[in-house]
C-alpha cells in the first residue's frame, strides 16, 4: 500500500512537470515518467502481462511523440495568458473531482474486488479452455469478440493515419485553390 502511494506521488510529480513546463521535448519525456511509473505499478499489482505491454508501448509512443516535436518549434506559445480557458478548465476539473468523490463512497475498499463473473474464470478456466494464462483465456476464448473489435479499431486508425499523411495521389494545388482555402504565404 505504501509502495503504491510512493509511486503514485512520483507519477503526479511527473504529470505536473509534463503539464506546466515550457519546452515541449521536456514535456514529452516527463509524460514518459508517468508511463513507466504506470508499468511499475502494473508489475506490483500482479498484472505481468500488462506490465510487459505497457513498457514496450511506452517506448514506441515516446518515439512517435519525439518524432513530432523535433523539426518543429518546440517552445510553448505564451504570448498572453488565456484567462477564460484557465477558468473553464478549473471549473470542469473541480466538477469532475467532486463527482469522483461522490462515486468513491459507494465503491468497495481497495483490495477487495467484487468478482461475480471472474470467479468462474479463475476456478474453471483451465478445464474449459486449457490455457494456463487466464488473461489469454479471457481475451481469446471467453471474450474474443472484444479482441476482434480491437483489431478492427487499430486497423482503422492506421488507415486514417495513412490517408492523412500521404500526399502522393493528390493533385497539385493551383494558385486559385490556394486563395480559396486561404493559406497564407
Amino acid at each position, binding site marked *: 500500500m505504501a509502495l503504491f502511494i510512493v509511486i503514485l506521488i512520483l507519477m503526479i510529480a511527473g504529470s505536473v512537470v509534463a503539464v506546466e513546463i515550457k519546452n515541449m521535448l521536456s514535456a514529452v519525456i516527463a509524460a514518459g515518467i508517468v508511463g513507466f511509473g504506470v508499468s511499475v505499478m502494473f508489475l506490483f499489482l500482479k498484472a505481468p502481462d500488462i506490465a510487459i505491454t505497457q513498457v514496450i508501448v511506452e517506448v514506441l509512443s515516446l518515439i512517435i511523440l519525439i518524432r*513530432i516535436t523535433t523539426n518543429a518549434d518546440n517552445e510553448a*506559445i505564451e504570448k498572453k495568458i488565456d484567462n477564460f480557458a484557465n477558468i473553464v478548465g478549473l471549473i470542469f476539473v473541480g466538477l469532475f473531482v467532486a463527482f469522483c468523490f461522490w462515486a468513491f463512497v459507494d465503491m468497495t475498499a481497495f483490495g477487495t474486488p467484487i468478482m461475480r463473473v471472474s470467479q468462474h474464470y479463475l476456478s474453471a478456466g483451465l478445464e474449459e479452455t486449457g490455457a494456463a494464462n487466464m488473461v489469454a483465456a479471457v481475451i481469446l476464448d471467453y471474450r474474443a469478440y472484444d479482441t476482434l473489435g480491437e483489431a478492427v*479499431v487499430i486497423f482503422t486508425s492506421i488507415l486514417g493515419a495513412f490517408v492523412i499523411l500521404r500526399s502522393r495521389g493528390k493533385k497539385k494545388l493551383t494558385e486559385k485553390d490556394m486563395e480559396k482555402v486561404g493559406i497564407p504565404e
Partner: protein
Amino acid sequence: MIVYILNVIIMALGLYCLIAKRHIIKKIIGMVLIEYSMNLFLILIGYRINGLAPILLPEMNRVQFSQYGVDPLPQALVLTSIVIGLGTLALMAAYAMKLYEKYRTFDMSEIRRLRG
C-alpha cells in the same frame, strides 16, 4: 481509497491540460495522461490484497488459486486498451504533423484565426 484519489488527481491534471493549454502537443500529452490513469484505475479495482497473478503454474494449488487470484477480466480489457491507445496516439500525431505542415504553427487559437 487514498490510492483511488491520487489516481484521480492524475486524471484531473490531464483534463486540465486538455482544456486549458493551447499547444497541440500539450493537448496530446493530456489525452495520454487521461488514458494512463484510466487503465491504472481499472487494474486497481481488480486488485486483491496478497493476491496471486492470474497465471497458473503446474505446482500450484488450484483451490488456493481460485480463492486468492486477482481479477483477470480488467487485465484482459486493459491489455487491448493499451494497444488501441498507441493506435490513436499515432493518429493524433499524424493530424498534428499535417496541421504543422499546413499552418507552420502549433497554436490552436492561431489556427482558428487563420481559418476565419
